[in-house]
């Protein structure tokens, strides 16, 4: 099988992020592989172990993103590519989707593209379906288990965790899938993997290499702000009987719209 896993490098989830001058600032916190993408890498590696073939990790970003790609190599991916181009500095999700689709096409004869559910910095969760749409492949999101892949028939059967429960979906390869945490615990890199990754030179592709036109972003997020801090004013709820109290409380809670 020829599997591609798309990863992103983001600030560590434990980082304290504040808005300074309209820009996000995470101080000294390290940049790491997007946690959801670790599950994607693990999923890809498990399928490769079962069906043979290789796993290629790709990431769109600056030079720092090579660290995330090296982590993917250390976990066991066969190769990795960085897509980096100054024209992508203010790319929106469609632009990234076209770029990733271009990279997947360049890798050629890919059966399966795996993404993590969303990136914990932008929290968009749209890159995978948009990339699938550019490729003309089906997207199956929120996969919590891969039941079976039949490489002969070119079929995949998965379980998805959605609002209605665990849905079983069959698809014809090639497909794009996004994975959630239930799928498998990501493995630690092996020491041999660490050595290989440390030595690896990661090739960089530009837009020209992918034959993708310079995108014009249409979505902009010029500034971020800190959420309004609220001084807590405690409201005690009382009533005639427990049900009345409960009803009032529920109304108040829903009214605040935090959940």
């Amino acid at each position, binding site marked *: 099988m020829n599997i591609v896993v798309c990863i992103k490098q983001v600030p560590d989830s434990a980082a304290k992020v504040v808005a300074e001058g309209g820009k996000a600032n995470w101080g000294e916190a390290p940049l790491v592989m997007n946690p959801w993408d670790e599950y994607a890498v693990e999923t890809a590696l498990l399928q490769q172990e079962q069906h043979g073939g290789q796993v290629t990790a790709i990431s769109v970003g600056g030079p720092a993103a090579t660290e995330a790609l090296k982590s993917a190599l250390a976990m066991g991916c066969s190769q990795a590519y960085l897509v980096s181009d100054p024209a992508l500095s203010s790319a929106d999700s469609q632009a990234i989707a076209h770029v990733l689709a271009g990279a997947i096409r360049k890798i050629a004869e890919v059966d399966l593209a795996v993404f993590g559910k969303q990136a914990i910095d932008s929290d968009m969760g749209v890159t995978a379906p948009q990339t699938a749409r550019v490729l003309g492949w089906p997207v199956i999101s929120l996969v919590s288990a891969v039941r079976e892949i039949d490489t002969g028939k070119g079929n995949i059967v998965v379980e998805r965790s959605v609002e209605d429960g665990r849905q079983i979906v069959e698809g014809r390869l090639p497909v794009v899938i996004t994975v959630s945490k239930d799928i498998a615990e990501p493995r630690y890199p092996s*020491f041999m993997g660490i050595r290989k990754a*440390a030595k690896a030179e990661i090739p960089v592709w530009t837009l020209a290499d992918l034959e993708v036109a310079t995108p014009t972003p249409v979505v902009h997020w010029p500034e971020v702000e800190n959420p309004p801090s609220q001084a807590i004013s405690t409201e005690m709820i009382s009533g005639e009987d427990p049900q009345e109290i409960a009803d009032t409380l529920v109304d108040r809670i829903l009214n605040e719209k935090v959940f």
Partner: protein
Amino acid sequence: MDFTLSEEHRMVQKMVRDFAQKEVAPVIKEHDRAQEMAQFILPRMGELGILGICIPVRYGGQGMDYISLGVACEELEAVDSTLRVVMSVHTGLNSMGLLQWGTEEQKQRFLAPLARGNKIGCFGLTEPGAGSDVAGLTSTARLEGEDYVINGEKMWISLATKADYCLWVARTDSKVDDPHDGLSAFLVEHDRPGITTGDIKGKLGVRAGSTGWIAAQDVRVPLGNRIGQEGDGFRIAMSCLDNGRYTVAAGATGLIRACLEASVKYANERRAFGREIGKFQLIQQKIAGMVQSYEAARLLYLQAGWMKNQGLRNTRETSLAKWFATEKSFEAASEAIQVHGAYGFSDEYDVERYLRNSKGAVIYEGSNEIHQLIQAGFALGYRDDAPLKSELPQYDPSYWQDNG
């Protein structure tokens, strides 16, 4: 001079940290309270390759360098000292002793299963009546035909009841002028008739670990199990300690860091007199002291690791690193408890465990006092180390990583 950890070292650090934090940290307290080693630790560390981290691939190891060993120990002890004790005895004292002194045949027979984690190793030097006075040990090994017959008792042996192999030092010659020259080293398999082991309970610290005694009653081991020549035992033991001590130094550094992190966290949360206690100078003084100790301890052990990588004799530097880090970890833990106030006195928080664990390292692998004598000995010119018949091999990536 490049003081940064290489990319490889950083990835090793992250991997070991993730393992220790995710798999051991959540359950360590309950095992410490029960004074029992968690069953999964040895197999898991073996499976992940940590037990053989710096052993060449051709001997079943992972082919990483000696700095990786140190970095791994720092991360392990930041969660609990017992994890690092495993590395100290299995890897530092036993496996690296075989790497340095074993014949090719012995390395294939004994080192390979140890490096793979298929067998567990321990180090049999200390006896009920002999700790610092190594030459005063009384265990004997008498040559009878093609075998040695070993008698004696070893005590305060980490992993005594868990290990498969013991690197046992015994007296082979009681008539020699200098008793130091009458000792020899042997690889003794625990399943040989005559070997019994037991656990020691009621220790102040490292309670989630396994410490015990090993008794040998007329245990026969073949000639091929003797490591080095007859009479090499003392020098072999001392060079094993150079490696064991290194892991202790690195580990104690991790313990200082754990004390520092716990104290910083608590000082930012606990409030008294209208503000976080971190705002008070006497608390800040304690934290500053821990920072100083951590940074200095770290540089000392990394230097020792670097020297091992270069194939340079490092007895002095390793001793210095161990003495400094362990003494400072005991202080840091005591101060960390103080920062936590009454809560530091309760095992709900980790700092009391850090203190109890830290005290052991001030005693074993060369007590504080012994190290002070070693340092003075070097400084005053009373000692110098003659080159050994076998030195710890210099780290060579292609030798370490080739399949041989």
